[in-house]
């Protein structure tokens, strides 16, 4: 997720249970990987389709995301990233 995030950064996540509305497009979200149980993904919400969320990494040449994985089911959404704790920065 460079340049937004770097390895070992800590982020604060607002859990989906606390989100009343659909996340805004462009929000960085955390979701379960559609085929690898227990693996959490952190990607940016590109668009909402009928069959799920299109999640893309900010660093396309390194990222494996909805381009390969397809739409991620809305039920896989864990939460939205509200800020980066270390180093401190508001997530745009």
């Amino acid at each position, binding site marked *: *997720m460079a340049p937004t*995030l770097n*390895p070992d950064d*800590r*982020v*604060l996540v607002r859990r989906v249970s606390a989100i009343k509305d659909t996340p805004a497009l462009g929000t960085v979200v*955390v979701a379960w*990987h559609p*085929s*690898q149980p227990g*693996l*959490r*993904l*952190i*990607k940016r919400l590109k668009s909402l389709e009928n069959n799920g969320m299109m999640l893309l*990494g900010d*660093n396309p*040449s*390194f*990222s*494996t995301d909805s381009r*390969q*994985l397809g739409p991620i089911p809305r039920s896989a959404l864990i939460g939205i990233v509200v800020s980066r*704790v*270390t180093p*401190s920065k508001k997530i745009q």
Partner: protein
Amino acid sequence: MLRSALNAIVCALPAPIVEAHCDGPCGVYDPASARVHAEAVLAMTKKLQALEAPAAGNAAALATYNNTFSRFVAVKEDEAQKTKKELLILWTDYFKPEHLGTFPDLHDTFWKAAKLCSACKVHIDQGKAEELLAAVEKIHGMFWQSKGRNDAWVTAS
């Protein structure tokens, strides 16, 4: 002051890890598949070289010879193409630009290995087939080193 104190508290708390790069859709890569096909190329090359042409005038033996020769060539061609496909998957899907730091000759190694696959199709050349297997062995070493492992190179033949 307050911010750094809060940061220290937050960082001391346990937090689950999230992944930004989760690799391929299945994430299963292994140079072993390229190795099996490259071994088959070498085996078919040796079989072709060992094949003896029949005596002149023996039509039945000539037909058998032509049939066997053609089949050996077809298998060699197919196995060389499969080797190339497996290598290209490792090159373009598994290896990432960050690996170039550790393996500056990564592109050259894969390019030459792919060229050797073609050479093994065009010729019946045991030297090229052995070079191809050696190139796959080098890629085997790079692959497992990139995963922090040191798996032994074991061949089937």
